[in-house]
């Protein structure tokens, strides 16, 4: 922990970065995002196994950008999000310094996409074993059972958009949900509105989701909503093989094609 | 290698030599012939005229018997039996309702998967063994005569080319023979009209075939159908009388020719049963061909 705090203090003192985005202690033991800009702030930074949130989403916020160059305490999910954001021209090359705390407690400084790519290459698969098992269990159900499961879950959605706001890849200033000419998706959180919203979000994350599970954690009513986007990403990987968050120059799976894409349902 | 065997009535009577030569040659090629237990007449000559249901029942029963004996392929040397059984197999292959109806008539189930092959289709699979087992090369000019039912109708025969078949030519070539290019490969020999009613028509039609073969200096006419063999061989006096010629060109079954080439005793091949005596001249000498040298400058 102290190595990280000292590093943050030095970076801020030397003016290499203007803000260090990290984790701090929250209510009853929670870990919440923290934005250190002074030595005092740096002292609050923490790092332990509970720091699972994906902080990369903040890098596309105007308030954070205005502060100048940022350093970010990065777990595996954050690193993948950095690469995907660079691939989608939201982060300029070298605009962010990633700080990775290793098991041994040392702090790695990854200052460019190449370094981040190499680090990501060493990581295990982005989809956690628990989530993969949940997906498999759901796929093992019959179609009717799956429909009942999702109908019962999505019924509880109140459309607070916590999933969208917490997702690092949902940086769009004006989302399709905000479009009212035409009103693609009903604003109301009735069953149709919820089904269409979550279908659209899953399709928009297909080929882009880094499978960090942040949306699932953010949902106040506890819907395992991350399974939808994780499945859409798995589908793209299985069929087109371009995993999101593994390269800064990825070409978007649904923005490209191969003449010999194989399918069996088109008549 | 094991295959179902359906001799049919002619191979047990007027064409016994064809049956003898088939068994002899198959033995040489170690192909075991499993005769279909309790096989019945294929209804060739009259059944399909008398009634469709009768004809189909007769043929389906043979197929069902073969299937019950675990044979999924049947050899029917006689061209007429081949045509009859093959057409039934094709007709029942993708017609579950017909299969259902006919299995009630014959009192046996039939799943529709049995395939029927003619003599040439089976021999074609053994071309290498034939070449290997040829002791005295059969280096004669021969006229391969297919007749009409071995390659037609295409939907039933599903075998070789209709206009200018090559399978028998290639089988004979394996023994060293030189099939001649002639134009009566699939011309009609007069068939059903032969023995009973219009013998003068047979003399005319078969006569043309014999004349054509003789003109091409063929030493023998090779065939794989008892009906054709009978017309070309037994009706030779009428043919010679019609053509005012003395054609002595013998008519051999393809299995008899292969038997001779493989050194089987002519007696076992039933050659003594022929009307036109089977006397073959000495095989032609070996001709060494040298590849043409391209003139180097």
């Amino acid at each position, binding site marked *: 922990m102290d190595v990280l705090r000292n590093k943050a203090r030095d970076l801020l003192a030397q003016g290499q970065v203007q803000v260090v985005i990290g984790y701090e202690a929250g209510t009853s033991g929670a870990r919440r995002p923290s934005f250190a800009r002074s030595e005092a702030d740096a002292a609050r930074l923490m790092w332990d196994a509970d720091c699972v949130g994906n902080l990369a989403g903040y890098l596309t916020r105007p308030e954070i950008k205005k502060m100048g160059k940022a350093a970010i305490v990065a777990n595996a999910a954050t690193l993948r999000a950095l690469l995907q954001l660079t691939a*989608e*021209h*939201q982060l300029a090359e070298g605009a962010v310094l990633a700080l990775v705390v290793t098991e041994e407690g040392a702090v790695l400084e990854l200052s460019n996409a190449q370094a981040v790519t190499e680090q990501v290459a060493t990581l295990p698969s982005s989809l956690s074993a628990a989530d993969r098992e949940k997906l498999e269990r759901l796929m093992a159900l019959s179609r009717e059972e799956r429909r009942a499961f999702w109908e019962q879950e999505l019924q509880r959605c109140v459309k607070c958009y916590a999933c969208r706001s917490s997702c690092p890849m949902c*940086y*769009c*200033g*004006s*989302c*399709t949900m905000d*479009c009212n*000419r*035409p009103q*693609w998706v009903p604003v109301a959180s009735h069953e149709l509105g919820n089904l269409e919203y979550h279908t659209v979000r899953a399709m*928009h994350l297909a080929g882009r989701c880094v499978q960090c599970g942040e949306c699932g954690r953010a949902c106040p009513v506890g819907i395992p909503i991350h399974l939808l986007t994780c499945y859409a990403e798995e589908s793209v990987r299985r069929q087109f093989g371009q995993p999101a968050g593994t390269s800064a120059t990825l*070409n*978007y799976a*649904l*923005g*490209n094609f191969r003449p010999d894409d194989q399918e069996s349902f088109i008549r | 290698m094991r295959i179902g065997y359906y001799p049919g009535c002619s191979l047990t009577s007027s064409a016994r030599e064809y049956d003898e030569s088939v068994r002899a040659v198959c033995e040489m090629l170690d192909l075991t012939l499993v005769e279909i237990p309790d096989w019945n007449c294929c209804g060739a000559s009259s059944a399909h005229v008398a009634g469709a249901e009768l004809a189909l029942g007769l043929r389906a029963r043979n197929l069902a018997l073969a299937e019950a004996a675990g044979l999924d392929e049947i050899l029917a040397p006689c061209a007429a039996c081949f045509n009859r059984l093959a057409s039934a197999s094709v007709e029942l292959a993708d017609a579950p309702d017909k299969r259902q109806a006919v299995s009630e008539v014959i009192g046996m189930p039939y799943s529709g998967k049995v395939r029927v092959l003619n003599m040439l289709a089976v021999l074609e699979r053994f071309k290498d063994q034939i070449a290997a087992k040829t002791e005295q090369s059969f280096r004669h000019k021969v006229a391969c005569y297919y007749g009409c039912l071995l390659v037609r109708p295409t939907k039933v025969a599903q075998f070789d*080319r*209709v*206009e*200018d078949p090559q399978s028998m030519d290639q089988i004979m070539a394996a023994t060293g023979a030189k099939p001649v*290019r002639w*134009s009566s490969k699939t011309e009609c020999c007069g068939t059903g009209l032969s023995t009973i009613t219009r013998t003068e028509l047979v003399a005319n039609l078969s006569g043309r075939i014999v004349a*054509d073969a003789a*003109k091409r200096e063929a030493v023998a006419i090779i065939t794989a159908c008892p009906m054709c063999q009978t017309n070309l061989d037994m009706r030779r006096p009428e043919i010679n009388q019609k053509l005012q010629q003395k054609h002595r060109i013998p008519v051999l079954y393809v299995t008899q020719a292969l038997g001779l080439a493989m050194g089987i005793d002519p007696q076992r091949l039933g050659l003594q049963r022929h009307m036109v005596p089977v006397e073959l001249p000495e095989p032609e000498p070996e001709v060494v061909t040298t590849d043409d040298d391209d003139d180097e*400058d």
Partner: protein
Amino acid sequence: MSRLGVFVCHCGENIGATVDVTEVAERCKHMSGVAHAEDYKYLCSNPGQNKIKQAIQEHQLDGVVVAACSPRMHEPTFRRAVSDAGLNAYMCEVANLREHCSWVHQKADSTTEKAVDLVRLQVEKVKRNKPLDTIQVPITRSALVIGGGIAGIQAALDIADSGHKVILVERSPALGGHMAQLSETFPTLDCSQCILTPRMVDVSRHPNITLLTYSEVEHVDGFIGNFKVAIRKRARMIDEELCTGCGECLQKCPTKNVIDSFNEGLSMRRAIYVPFAQAVPNIPVIDTEHCRRYQKKKCDRCAKACPTKAIKFDQKDEILNVEVGAIVVATGYQVMSTDRFPEYGYGTYPDVITGLQFERYASASGPTQGVIKRPSDGKEPETVVFLACSGSRDAAKGVKYCSKICCMYTAKHAMLLKHKNHNAKAYVFYMDIRAAGKNYDEFVRRAIEEDGVKYIRGRVSRIYEEDGKLIVKGADTLLGGEPVQIKADMVVLASAALPNHGQGELAQKLHVGTDPYGFVAEAHPKLRPVETTSAGIFLAGACQSPRDIPETVGQASAAAAKVTALLSRSHLAREPLVAEVNRRPAPEYSTCTGCLLCETACPYQAIGHEDIKDRNGNVLKTLAKINPGLCQGCGTCVSLCRTKAIDLHGYSNEQVFAEIMSL
């Protein structure tokens, strides 16, 4: 948008028969936003269009829906009428009540109900239409002609004469195509070389024509007015500037056993060759497949003999990238070879030949200098049988169509045979004689009456060889179906005309459709025969379907006229149905997030990006930017964009959404 006009067409009986048009018009009156609705017998007629124009003035309409035939047929007509009346053309939509409703359904309430739905669909759409102005796109004022036969030559000459640059690409080493192989041409029997060679020379000498022989189109990009074409100029191994065409090298080549495709395989040629004497350009080509030097053997006899040292063995293929505004496809045809006829010996009888082979025999520049000889023994044939409709009009051969030219050239062949050898006997087996052109039937009558050609109406069932003769077994259906048997010395099959080999791949490179037989598909069989569905790509000659020389030349000039019309303007007015990135007031500037994932999706590379800068130059936001000149309006980017920042004029999100909501 509240004053719409709905016009429902009877289309004579085509719509009126199964759709209650007056009921449809009545129902439209009550649709919200519709100020005027009426039905009329023929809206596409002048009085019909005038009705629309008057109604626009009279009721101050600001949107029109015409419920008639397919928009693919008369949308331009109605949009022009609407713009004549002062309303923007793109405020008019067409509902397809004919092809998609009246013609395909029975007369029933459900059919009328569907018609009303289809009209309501367009009413809701037109409410969201925006006035659009055509886009002016600069045109590259030059043309590409693919194929150097008479079609390509004529098209190239006409376009060049109108002052535009033409690039003529021919796959074989010389111009001429099949016409160069012909002896005389019907119905006038003037020698094909005499009328063709001057045209070929004109092409080679025309200042506006760049002739690229022994070359093929490799790749085509772009669209009408702005095609980018990559042409592979195959290496001739001879420097065209240095070569004078003296032909010294031709004599020295030791390889003499290469089958001469120009003579349809009747003779041999050397490894270095010129297709035929009057070839344009008269520059030989080294056939690397057969030349010994390229088969690991040293040989440079031709190089030694060349006075101007023009032979360059290490010449490489060149890829020329050219830009043209229009393309004419003139790739011609090929004839079905004899090995496709099992009943005539599978092509194994040497004396059974095709019409083109007979042409070579009859041609003075042919292998036998114009003397008809038998390929087997070289003797002059006494009896020749000609078989019309060989392979054509025969579903079993997969050629159901009539090849149109065989009746005429068969009569010509028979006539030439009799002229060259008076006591030769010529028989023609035919089904029907199709000689419908000018002086055509007279030509056939002349062959029958003056030259004594025996026409037998019936098909030939079999041909087989006996004692060196070909026994032709047929039947004469006019004389009571009597079987006929002719002992012939030679049989000429007037075989079916098929699309030229390689036509399929070329069609795919050009994105032009082909019909089930593989001929290039015209835009409309009756009204647009020389155009294809891809704008800017035109057709000439037998590549579209078999036809004779007069028709081919006519069509070539028609295609040239279309090209000249296109190239006559400096700019091309293009449909404004293109995509556009939306703009919003500061600080948002656009809903586009600058993710640029659309850039790779555009097949025309029409999407770039632009930076929004503040006064002192630092970048506030990067937005996608669409070049309206390149965009063809496919809409792939529109449905890809997550924030719906890109919209497509004519099929905007609001329009399509409104159509769905009206169902």
